[in-house]
């Protein structure tokens, strides 16, 4: 199933959320993203990411590879969809950071499990799952 942000299939503990195809452009996307999720932690992340979308240079760290607005948009869609889930993907990210190569990484943690979802500048989305520090699975979602 191809989604608005292009990923499909999951290998973690829960089925993916139901995703609705959209053709939102930037303004409509901002309206969508501004609908408040239940949890304040999610809301804070989305607010921060909207600031990044307005000013991508806020994500610059140690070099000049800037994260594009289209990639930030994609990340906001994913986070916004996650915020509406129950179960595993109901926990908010522990960190959302630039990857140093023009991409963004979403990090999640629950007890001994850690997940990272990497939105690469190339357009790929990779997911990695660790248990007790050991990589137990990875997938190229798109």
């Amino acid at each position: 199933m191809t989604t608005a942000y292009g990923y499909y299939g999951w290998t973690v503990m829960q089925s993916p959320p139901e995703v609705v195809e959209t053709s939102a452009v930037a303004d409509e996307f901002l309206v969508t993203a501004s609908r408040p999720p239940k949890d304040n932690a999610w809301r804070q992340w989305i607010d921060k990411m909207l600031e990044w979308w307005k000013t991508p240079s806020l994500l610059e760290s140690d070099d000049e590879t800037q994260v594009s607005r289209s990639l930030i948009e994609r990340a906001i869609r994913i986070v916004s969809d996650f915020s509406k889930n129950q179960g595993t993907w109901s926990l908010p990210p522990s960190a959302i950071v630039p990857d140093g190569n023009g991409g963004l990484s979403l990090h999640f943690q629950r007890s001994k499990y850690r997940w990272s979802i990497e939105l690469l500048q190339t357009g790929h989305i990779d997911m990695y799952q660790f248990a007790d520090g050991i990589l137990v699975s990875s997938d190229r979602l798109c």
Partner: protein
Amino acid sequence: MAENSDVNPIAENEVLYRRIPEVWCGTNQLVLEAFLPTKSDTDGLSLARECVGAVGAAATGRQGKQFYVGELRPTDLPQGLSIIADANEHAFIPEMNHAARQSDVKETREQLRQWAEILRQRCKNVLGPFPGKAAIMKT
């Protein structure tokens, strides 16, 4: 081990510093990106040697930005990794290079992230933040 006879070899207990942009150092932990190679890690994961010091290691970062510095020792490296000193001030882990991060081979990407996770866990001492002082790097 030193590649150049003018370069002092790395001692087993030498402190090595990984420069970490502030954004990769959260309130309680480092993120995996702190030990994943970036575009500047073309030959391998770059580390400053002990003689540089933590403040000096951070100073090699971009001016106007703040950096943390993670401490590692050669004994922290997991099996499969080596370390090369190319200067008395600099060393690198050749297996953890930018090409590996960009690889189309799933196993290569996985191995890199496993190594990065091990280093992240073994980096027990993080110092800073300290200011970067380098001019803007062109990429």
